[in-house]
């Protein structure tokens, strides 16, 4: 199919769940109510690293209104094994240990015990009555610190894996891996210009507005029913079943509406605890995190320590690139450093590359995915160095990127060879945008550019479509809808069926009611669940053609469907007319789609940022911002733009303000939305968008996931803009006023 042939794909219908969300009727996890509901509260560690000598819950249990208290000892003892947490495997003991600490606490905010009571206030009071005897241990808070000989060790059983082999060495480095390609030394020997820089980035949080929540009922028939806000109902089901040592079929998870996730609502924190409390009380138990709990007890994204070295010839070709990426995993291994390593030089065609990645545990919350996890840190480093090289060579920064841009056939250092990609098209769109050549209009102003990549994922999705007698269809799917995916999925079914998007009624259902569907993450939902809907719609079309053939007494193969009209010879019937005749022609029509698609297409993104730096205070103002991204084919352009704008602004916050301020004792000192400073409407200009469409050959409509790549370039682009405005190359995130002033002053010295 060619773009111009689409009737639904590429249009901008009103989202199906929209009215409920603008009237307050949509039910999010914390809105769930049930007769007999009890309220839970979690007691969290005040120390960043401590041995738990003793927990005494007796006083808490005696408080009137308290119905149950649980600790890690209430989990069933099960043999160690690897479990899939929705984005990669982890040892069961780590997954369980993060939900309720056993033996040791590894970060301030680590959950220790939980109370269920008749009100949330009583539960909170009771948690304060739990007595915990700690032996406080020294803590390590950054990757370089944790990697030193003699550093405090978080896990006595964690042995470093090096280049895929177990070393037997106990340390905070869970893994050291390397991607290598070509001959790095020969590559640098060819270089006529070389830049090597070191970078540090702070821990930041996804910052979703809705805190984590979960309600669980351990029912009298032994089934465990869960209602929660999650990116993956099936991963909640699987992890909950695993920690409680019951078969997955015993757990049913109903995904409520979700108030933001960005990767942070993939891990499971509360559901197994609520289930344990429910088992003890026989009542449903709801737990909702406070904002402080969200900062201290959920999964932010890694801080990092990085070095990047790039060499190029005078003609502007990069000859070699090397990166050292040490990411802070937080309390348990899994810092998303591999994705960072996959993306660090992914936008460039470079023959000689070495990338070393280190996954380092530290006494901070166990990190989770955050929109293109790992890639934003790495791109900040790489794009800063690329900019400096282009400057040294006297080449326009976009021309330099164009000269070295990855294209079809380029091999990445981690192995894959690109199919058709839109890197060049994105850079060209940046160059052609009027923003790139517009006057800056004042002193202390600068313009910076950067590009970035996210590979996107496929993974399984399921969908069914049933046809109603009035010619509409009901679409049932399992992907929780964080940003309009009900509509982008329904539109793909509508396109196949030749009916308006409004005639498809999408519903996100519980884990009993649809086939397995992986998390809403990795920019996969419109791509993969959309593909499942495409398949289910094709199945409906096949069955409907048979019905038409039956009525017309002809062969199904002779029936065609064109824009909602079935035809064979001179006979015609609309989708609606045929839908009304299903009862007489054999009964209901239900289509099914279950996919695990391979053809995922990566997305490139770029941005142009204009800033003004106040030389007296170091405050950076974003004057103008343009985001460009390859969407393959934008199914619903408004929501593609929305992803680009949202990702850009998260990138701006990461670049300029956001940071976990940790004191020496490992306590976050800014765990509120006042002090953890996310961008407000007042901090920003409009965010211009340019959607580039280089169709993904691996998707029926050419779609590429668009959720993530847009957050990757902003910090690099803003750093490059700050350089042009204030003459300082920033080597840390956030680039807040103190950091900028320090850089300006040290340059004057």
């Amino acid at each position, binding site marked *: 199919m060619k773009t111009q042939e689409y009737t639904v794909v590429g249009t901008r219908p009103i989202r199906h769940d929209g009215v409920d969300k603008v009237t*307050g009727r949509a039910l999010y996890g914390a809105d769930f109510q049930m007769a007999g509901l009890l309220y839970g509260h979690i007691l969290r560690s005040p120390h960043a690293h401590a041995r738990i000598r003793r927990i005494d819950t007796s006083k808490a249990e005696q408080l009137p209104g308290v119905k149950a208290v649980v600790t890690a000892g209430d989990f069933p003892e099960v043999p160690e094994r690897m479990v899939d947490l929705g984005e990669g495997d982890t040892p069961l003991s780590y997954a369980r240990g993060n939900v309720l600490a056993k033996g040791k606490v590894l970060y301030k905010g680590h959950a220790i015990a939980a109370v269920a009571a008749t009100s949330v206030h009583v539960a909170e009071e009771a948690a304060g009555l739990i007595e915990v005897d700690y032996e406080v241990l020294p803590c390590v808070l950054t990757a370089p610190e944790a990697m030193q000989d003699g550093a405090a060790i978080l896990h006595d059983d964690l042995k470093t894996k090096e280049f895929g082999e177990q070393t037997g060495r106990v340390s905070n480095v869970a893994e050291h891996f390397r991607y290598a390609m070509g001959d790095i030394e020969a590559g640098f020997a060819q270089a006529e210009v070389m830049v090597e820089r070191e970078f540090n980035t702070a821990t930041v949080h996804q910052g979703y507005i809705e805190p984590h929540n979960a309600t669980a009922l351990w029912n009298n028939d032994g089934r465990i029913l869960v209602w929660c806000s999650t990116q993956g109902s099936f991963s909640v089901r699987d992890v909950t079943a695993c920690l409680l040592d019951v078969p997955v079929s015993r757990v049913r998870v109903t995904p409520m509406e979700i108030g933001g996730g960005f990767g942070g609502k993939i891990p499971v924190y509360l559901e197994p605890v609520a289930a344990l409390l429910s088992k003890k009380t026989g009542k449903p138990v709801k737990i909702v995190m406070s904002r402080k709990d969200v900062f201290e007890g959920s999964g932010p994204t890694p801080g990092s320590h990085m070095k990047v070295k790039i060499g190029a010839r005078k003609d502007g070709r990069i000859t070699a690139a090397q990166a050292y990426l040490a990411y802070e995993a937080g309390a348990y291994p899994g810092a998303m450093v591999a994705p960072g390593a996959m993306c660090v030089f992914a936008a460039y065609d470079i023959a000689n590359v070495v990338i070393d990645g280190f996954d380092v545990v530290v006494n901070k919350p166990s990190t989770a995915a955050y929109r293109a996890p790992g890639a934003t840190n790495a791109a900040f480093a790489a794009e800063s160095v690329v900019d400096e090289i282009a400057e040294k060579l006297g080449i326009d920064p976009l021309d330099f990127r164009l000269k070295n841009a990855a294209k079809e056939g380029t091999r990445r250092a981690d192995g894959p060879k690109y199919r058709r990609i839109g890197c060049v098209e994105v850079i060209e769109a940046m160059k052609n945008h009027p923003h790139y050549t517009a006057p800056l209009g004042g002193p202390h102003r600068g313009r910076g550019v950067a590009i970035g990549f996210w590979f996107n994922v496929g993974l399984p999705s399921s969908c069914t479509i049933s046809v109603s007698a009035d010619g509409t269809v009901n679409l049932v799917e399992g992907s929780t809808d964080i940003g309009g995916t009900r509509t982008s999925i329904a539109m793909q079914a509508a396109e196949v069926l030749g009916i308006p998007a409004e005639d498809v009624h999408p519903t996100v259902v519980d884990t009993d009611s649809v086939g397995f569907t992986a998390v809403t993450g990795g920019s996969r939902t419109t791509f993969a669940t959309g593909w499942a809907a495409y398949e289910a719609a094709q199945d409906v079309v096949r069955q409907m053609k048979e019905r038409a053939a039956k009525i017309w007494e002809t062969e199904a193969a002779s029936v065609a469907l064109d824009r909602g009209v079935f035809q064979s010879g001179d006979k015609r019937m609309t989708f609606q007319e045929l839908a009304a005749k299903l009862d007489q022609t054999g009964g209901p029509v239900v289509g099914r789609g279950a996919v695990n698609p391979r053809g995922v297409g990566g997305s490139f993104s770029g941005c142009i940022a204009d800033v003004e730096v106040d030389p007296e205070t170091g405050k950076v103002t974003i004057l103008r911002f343009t985001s460009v991204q390859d969407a393959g084919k934008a199914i619903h352009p408004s929501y593609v733009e929305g992803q680009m704008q949202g990702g850009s602004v998260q990138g701006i916050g990461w670049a300029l303000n956001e940071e976990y301020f940790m004191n020496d004792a490992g306590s976050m000192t800014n765990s509120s939305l006042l002090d953890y400073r996310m961008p407000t409407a007042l901090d920003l200009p409009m965010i211009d968008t340019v959607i580039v469409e280089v169709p993904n050959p691996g998707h029926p409509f050419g779609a590429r996931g668009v959720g993530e790549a847009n957050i990757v370039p902003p910090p690099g682009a803003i750093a490059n803009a700050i350089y042009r405005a204030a003459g300082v190359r920033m080597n840390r995130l956030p680039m807040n006023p103190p950091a900028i002033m320090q850089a300006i002053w040290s340059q004057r010295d």
Partner: protein
Amino acid sequence: MHTKVRVQTTINGEPQEFLCEPRQSLLECLRDLLGLTGTKEGCNDGNCGACTVLMDDRVVTSCLVLGVEAQGCQITTIEGIARGSELHPLQRSFLENAALQCGICTPGFIVAAKALLDQQPNPSEDEIRLWLANNLCRCTGYDKIIRAVKQAAEQMQEVNA
């Protein structure tokens, strides 16, 4: 210890009476006692704006108001913004402009924006940004929200013209 207090208010135009503990916030009373869960909790310390409601036409974060303070007040929540079966122009323009993604901040934004348009029917972009700086949105980058408020203002002025 937790003697409950009787509170008489008007919520979304209807007289409403409830019993609450003195320590319960208006947000808790709305959500847990009255079932008005359209008002959301994002931070419980007045910094995110998800729980924004109108109290005698003043914009407040209901997490920072005690339930007992609502005595004798007129409260407007997101559930009271639509006019019967017809959406408020702001609700329509939020939908038409795709001004929400996850939707958790949307009730707070719509309530706050309504208060703005009630007193300033033709706000500039800067005025909208300043007024809405109390409400955090993490999904949209605000661009489409600002446009939606502007569009609603224009449509309301056309209707009133």
